[in-house]
């Protein structure tokens, strides 16, 4: 698909920014996202190209405005739905549950 992921030769993104002594992960949320996708891969959940496509179908505006591991977060969701690991309803319910637990300080 002619998606926003296909950035080769596009203008306007600016200069490359590098980080000295860059850590492998920039926070626990990156580790958490990586752990899910990493196990999907290790367990052979789906072909690698299905993973790539699960990112390509992201909302293009979100793709361009979010860090890399948000792309993987959407992949973790989409691959979960497509491979019947969980449903969108189950995910929303679990988010609500975790949110209310947090508010109650559980």
């Amino acid at each position, binding site marked *: *698909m*002619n998606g926003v992921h*296909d950035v*080769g*030769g596009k203008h306007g993104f600016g200069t490359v920014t590098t980080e000295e002594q860059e850590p492998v992960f920039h926070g626990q949320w990156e580790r958490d996202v990586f752990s899910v996708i*990493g*196990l*999907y*891969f*290790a*367990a*052979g*959940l789906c*072909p*690698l*190209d*299905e993973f*790539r*496509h699960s990112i*390509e179908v992201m909302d293009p505006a979100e793709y361009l405005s979010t860090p890399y591991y948000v792309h993987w977060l959407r992949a973790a969701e989409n691959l979960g739905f497509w*491979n019947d*690991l969980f449903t969108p309803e189950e995910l929303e319910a679990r988010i609500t549950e975790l949110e209310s637990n947090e508010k109650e300080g559980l």
Partner: protein
Amino acid sequence: MRLLQANEVHDAIRTPTNFTRPDAPPTRFSVGDRVTVRNLNPTGHTRLPQYAKGRTGVISIHHGFFVFPDTMAHGEGDQPQHLYNVRFTVGELFGKHGGNPDDHVYIDMWESYLDEASS
């Protein structure tokens, strides 16, 4: 999805997937052939970047007979094809933009992405 215990993860990630297939038919192209990239616009997954469409390059490597991502991504089977590396000049891809037009970009491409160049 296979349930992996922690002590199984290392071996799992160290086991390579085999992306090649046996019983390859003859290749359509040989190293050194001039090829033009087809102007394909599938709505599903593809590994053909926009910037190479319609451009002409030279086959630099024949990698082998590989599963086809455009079908693999959609549960349509491996439908293997010959995979090549194609060399393009930066000038062919981007005109005079970007410095030295004699620099090269090398792109891996499946056989069905390519036509024989017309001249």
